[in-house]
């Protein structure tokens, strides 16, 4: 396995940090789930997709 170092790009750190920011993850997914629930009753299909997205995305934060 190659182990060459990659220089850290501070200009992109903020944007990349947002990808794993807990508020961004929680607000965008739980917010979407709540919006689906409030809009048309608690509908199974969109919630299933949102839950799967959150399951994958939140794996950045392993307990």
């Amino acid at each position, binding site marked *: 396995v*190659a182990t060459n170092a990659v220089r850290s790009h501070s200009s*992109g750190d903020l944007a990349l940090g947002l*990808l*794993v920011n*807990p508020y961004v993850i929680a607000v965008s997914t739980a917010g979407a*789930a709540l919006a689906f629930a409030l809009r048309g009753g608690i509908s199974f299909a969109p919630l299933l997709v949102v839950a799967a997205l*959150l399951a994958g995305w*939140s794996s950045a934060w392993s307990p």
Partner: protein
Amino acid sequence: MGSTGLNPAVSGARYGRWLGHLAVYVAAVALGAAATAFVLVVLETGVDRVGGGKVAWLAVAAPLVILAIARDLGAHAPVPYRNVQVPQVLRYLLSPTLLALAYGAQLGTGFLTRFTYSTHTAAILLLPLAIDNPGVVALTVAALALGKGVVVAASAGTISDQGPEGIDARLRWRPRGLRIMRAANAAVAALLLASCLTTGGVL
């Protein structure tokens, strides 16, 4: 977090190559999740054929989802998966492409490693209830793979080949982040389960 061992340093510091590995990883997650979904759909179909129907499947799945939600909320509840992560030793044994394939397939399959949060348990166990709509099944599998891919993408620019350590700088507020993730996952998993019990759900 073992998947962040796929950071650019592991790919030889070439971003084009790393993006290829990222694509392999996302595809492998989707394949792993699809394999699990296939097995569960076969089981659910069996339950359906013997007269159990979707209610019987839900009777088995719901308690497991509730246990996972309870665990997210801090209870020491048993959960239906192995409490291990992907083997770190693979990072030294496999080429980056094979590593992306192995980690992706293992994490996508899910039951081979711990499901990090209750949404994973809920989405996978309740997925067979959506089999009448293959598009939803495909979207669910794709969403899981995309979500896991985002986590690996966030490791871009890290300088370590040591996996999680490389991305830790972007996870500075760990205790609060974990609390937020647990709460969000428990809420969404509970909503998903509730949707099975309402008129707008699958029953």
